């Protein structure tokens, strides 16, 4: 048997195991109506840890991260910064979100925002924005899976077929077993990814350069521009500080606003579990270090023309395949990268469909449980197909896709913070801020030449968003103090039984 066939056999076995875990855990949980909630309660800290880690770290970390370190050098460091800066405030904000969720019975982000700022338009707008942000994110995961499979099989299974295969499996287990599968497969995949990334990140520089220090010495001597912050652009020119810093800020603001992460505040067993998950989050950021080391190790090891189509996202699998590592290790590694893609992809597909139903459709036209479940399944497939077509025909690198989606999702931060912390905010302010902010982000996305200091379009959108939110809120009459207090101090006074405002 040829080497690539052994590796492919391992990948197939891995996909089989993933599918099996997904289906079995789903069957177990679906016996009770509260399968999802009970399943969540089963999650101890360790499981919760890997669930969070695996859904945050995606194909982007495994392929996009090394690709950036390899081609853009120090520019990749922005990825080290934003996770920590974004999650730290969530230690407290998350608790407040959870408390409000408990006292008001919210299960989605839009319910929290429109609870404080009653507006069906706002709810639908949030659903639309969330889906708009999810699509590039899912596209990224799919393309990542396709890249791994194409590289491993030496092109025998091209990107389009590999992505279709991996995501066919993801869709099947999301459809059959819902969230329970997402939890358990993530744990399995998370453990796998962390172990393999550290092993290779420490081993490869030693194997190729005789150590991490000597590797960076050589890069500093022969390619000093790679180690000069803020690194390079995709075309090899120096990147600007404005773009670097605003990439950090937009991603930091956006990270906790992702609906699939945000909603964890509503489902976490108690405040303590939620806090601990946030507390342990920086340890996942450290996991990026070995991933970057792998990318830097490729600088003198892989020539750009060895990468299929010159796509730098291929650097990691290409390197692994060129080492004389046993086929078994290569296979396991590629399974790790594949799992990174799939464990995020499943959570994203599930969340995109839930948000569309809960926030986009339900406020306009209430659905019964069966209709909602059916509609969700249709949407999972639909979003899968849309993202797939972008994955196969689109052109941007994985990190660029990610940054675009962060710019969109960051627009959810001002209304969330205003809802929980600013008593003077009004519905008109929140709604007009959201429209103006998203509009501005969209405008600068299509007119990159007009961006001030090359700032990220999402950050420019946020600036407009804040000005409009504050200005319009102050110009309109304040909300009832009783209503406001339910959000600023949740659970402080006994909740008044009130008719629910949709």
């Amino acid at each position: 048997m040829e080497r690539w066939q052994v590796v492919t056999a391992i990948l197939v076995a891995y996909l089989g195991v993933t599918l099996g875990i997904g289906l079995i855990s789903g069957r177990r949980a679906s016996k009770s109506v509260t399968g999802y909630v009970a399943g969540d309660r089963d999650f101890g800290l360790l499981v919760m840890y890997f669930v969070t880690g695996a859904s945050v770290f995606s194909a982007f970390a495994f392929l996009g991260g090394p690709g950036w370190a390899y081609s853009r050098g120090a520019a990749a460091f922005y990825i080290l910064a934003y996770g920590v800066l974004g999650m730290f405030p969530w230690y407290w904000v998350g608790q407040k979100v959870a408390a409000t969720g408990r006292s008001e019975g919210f299960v989605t982000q839009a319910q929290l925002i429109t609870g404080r700022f009653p507006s069906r338009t706002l709810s639908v707008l949030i659903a639309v924005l969330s889906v708009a942000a999810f699509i590039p994110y899912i596209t990224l995961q799919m393309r990542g899976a396709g890249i791994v499979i194409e590289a491993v099989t030496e092109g025998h299974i091209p990107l389009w077929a590999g992505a279709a295969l991996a995501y066919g499996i993801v869709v099947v287990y999301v459809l059959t077993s819902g969230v329970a599968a997402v939890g358990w497969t993530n744990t399995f995949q998370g453990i796998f990814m962390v172990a393999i990334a550290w092993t290779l990140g420490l081993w490869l520089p030693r194997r190729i350069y005789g150590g991490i220090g000597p590797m960076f010495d050589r890069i500093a001597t022969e390619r000093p521009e790679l180690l000069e912050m803020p690194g390079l652009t995709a075309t090899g020119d120096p990147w600007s500080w404005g773009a670097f810093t605003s990439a950090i800020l937009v991603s930091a603001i956006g990270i906790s606003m992702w609906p699939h992460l945000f909603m964890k505040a509503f489902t976490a067993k108690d405040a303590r579990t939620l806090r601990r998950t946030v507390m342990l989050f920086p340890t996942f950021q450290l996991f990026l270090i070995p991933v970057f080391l792998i990318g830097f190790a490729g600088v003198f090891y892989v020539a750009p023309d060895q990468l299929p189509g010159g796509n730098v996202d291929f650097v990691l699998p290409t390197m692994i395949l060129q080492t004389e590592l046993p086929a078994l290790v290569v296979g396991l590694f590629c399974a790790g990268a594949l799992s990174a893609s799939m464990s995020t992809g499943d959570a994203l597909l599930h969340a995109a469909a839930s948000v569309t139903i809960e926030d986009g459709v339900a406020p306009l036209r209430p659905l019964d449980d069966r209709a909602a479940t059916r509609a969700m399944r249709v949407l999972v497939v639909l979003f899968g197909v849309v993202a797939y077509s972008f994955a196969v025909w689109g052109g941007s690198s994985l990190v660029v896709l990610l940054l675009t989606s962060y710019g969109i999702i960051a627009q959810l931060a001002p209304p969330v913070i205003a809802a929980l912390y600013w008593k003077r905010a009004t519905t008109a302010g929140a709604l007009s801020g959201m429209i103006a902010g998203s509009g501005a982000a969209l405008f600068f996305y299509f007119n990159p030449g007009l961006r001030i200091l090359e700032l990220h379009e999402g950050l420019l959108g946020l600036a407009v968003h804040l000005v409009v939110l504050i200005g319009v809120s102050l110009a309109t009459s304040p909300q009832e103090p009783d209503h406001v207090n339910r959000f600023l101090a949740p659970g402080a006074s006994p909740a008044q039984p009130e008719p629910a405002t949709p």
Partner: protein
Amino acid sequence: MSLRTVRIGAGVVYLLALAALTWPVLTRVNQVEPQILGLPFHMAWFAGWIVVTFVTLLIVDRFETAAEEEDRS
């Protein structure tokens, strides 16, 4: 130390991290030497701040959990 002091302290650490990991402070640490555990200095700078925030949250969590248990009893 009271919970309030700890929270304010954590806020200060956060602001320091925010400054340390963005322009213009980054321009001052934009160097490869000295290497730390083999990593170039600026990469170790990022890694170091991740460790600092982790340790800060670890301490904060101790106090928050203790205060929560006091509330309950």
